[in-house]
C-alpha cells in the first residue's frame, strides 16, 4: 500500500465524521439518524489507520479478498439506513394524515360554532 492511499483512507473517514458531526451540531441531523453514519465513519477511520486489521478480519470470516468485506459492510449499513428511512417515512405519512383529519374536523367545528353564534346573536337582536 502506498503512502498516498493510506492518507486517502484516513482523510475520507475524517470527512465523513466531520460532515456528520457538523450536521449534528447544527441540528441538521438528529442523533437517531446520525448513529449509523457515525458508526460507519468510526469503523472507516479505524481501518484507515490500521489497514492490517481489515486483512485479519477478512481472514477471520473466511473472506478471500479483504475489499469484499468492506463492500459487504457498506451495503449492510446502507440497507439498514434505507429501512430506517422507509419506516420513518411511513410514520410521518400516518402522522400527517391524522393531523389533516384533525385540522379538517376542527375547521368544520369552528364554522358550525360561528354559524350558531351568529344565529343566536341575530335572535337576541330581533326577538
Amino acid at each position, binding site marked *: 500500500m502506498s503512502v498516498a492511499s493510506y492518507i486517502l483512507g484516513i482523510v475520507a473517514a475524517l470527512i465523513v465524521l466531520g460532515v456528520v458531526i457538523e450536521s449534528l451540531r447544527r441540528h441538521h441531523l438528529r442523533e437517531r439518524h446520525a448513529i449509523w453514519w457515525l458508526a460507519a465513519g468510526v469503523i472507516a477511520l479505524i481501518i484507515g489507520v490500521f489497514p492490517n486489521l481489515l486483512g485479519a478480519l477478512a481472514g477471520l470470516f473466511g473472506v478471500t479478498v479483504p475489499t469484499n468485506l468492506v463492500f459487504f459492510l457498506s451495503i449492510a449499513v446502507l440497507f439498514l439506513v434505507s429501512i430506517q428511512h422507509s419506516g420513518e417515512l411511513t410514520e410521518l405519512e400516518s402522522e400527517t394524515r391524522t393531523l*389533516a383529519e384533525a385540522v*379538517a*374536523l376542527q375547521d*368544520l367545528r369552528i364554522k*358550525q360554532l360561528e354559524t*350558531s353564534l351568529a344565529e343566536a346573536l341575530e335572535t337576541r337582536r330581533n326577538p
Partner: protein
Amino acid sequence: MMGVMPTALERTLIVMPAFNEEEAVGAVVREVFATAPGVACLVVDDGSLDATAREAEAAGATVLRLPINLGVGGAMRAGFKYAVASGYSNVIQVDSDGQHDPRGIEELVAQLGRYDLVLGARFAGVGDYAVRGPRRWAMQVLSGILSKITKTKLTDTTSGFRASGPRAVALFAQHYPSEYLGDTVESLVIAARSGLTVTQVPVAMRPRAGGVPSHNPYKAAVYLGRAGMALFVALIRPRITISEPPASTAAIPVVSG
C-alpha cells in the same frame, strides 16, 4: 334531544369522499336527500382544487375539507371520525360521481340491524353494470378469498357502496387503511378479523359517468397483483380488538343551522 326515538336513517350519516367532483357532487347530494329523507350527508372534500366544496354546500351537505389529498381511505377515516364525534350510529359510503344509486341506501340500512358491515354488490343480479374478461376474473378470485375470510358469500368485494354499523364505525374511525385497495380489500379483512359480521345485498349500479371499465389483461394482472399484496399485508398484520366506545361522553353532537 328529541321526544321520539330517531329512526335508523336519522342515526345514519352518508359519507361521500369527493376529489374534484364539482360537476357531479351537487346532483348526487340532492338525489340522496330526495331518496333517503332524514339522513345526514357529509361530503369529505379530499383536497379538491375545484368548486367541489361549494357545490356540495349549496346542495345542503355538510362539508369536511381536508387540507391535503389523502385518497378514498383517508377521506373515509375522517368521515368515520366525524360520525363518532357527532354521535351517528351508522355510516354509509356513497361515491360522489353518481355511480351508486341512492335507492340502495334503505336496503343497506335495513341489514345493519343484523350485521356490522353491509356491502352493496354490483353483480348480484340487480342493475345493468357489467365487467367482463380478465378484470372480472381477477375480481372473482379476490371475492372467493375474501368470502372465506369473512365466512359469508361475497361476490363484489371492491364495491365502495357499503354501510357500517356502530361497531364497524368505532373500529374504522381508528383503523381505516389509506393505501390503494386498502379501503376496500384490507378494510374487509380488518373487519372480519376483529370479529365483525359481514354480508352483502344486491344493488343497482350505474356505469361511471366518465370512462369505461378496462378490459386490458395486463392491467387486470396488475390489479390482481396489487389486490393480492393488499390481502397478504392485511393478513400478516396483528389483529385489532375493538375498544367499546365510551358511553355518551364523546358523543356531543354539534348542531349546525
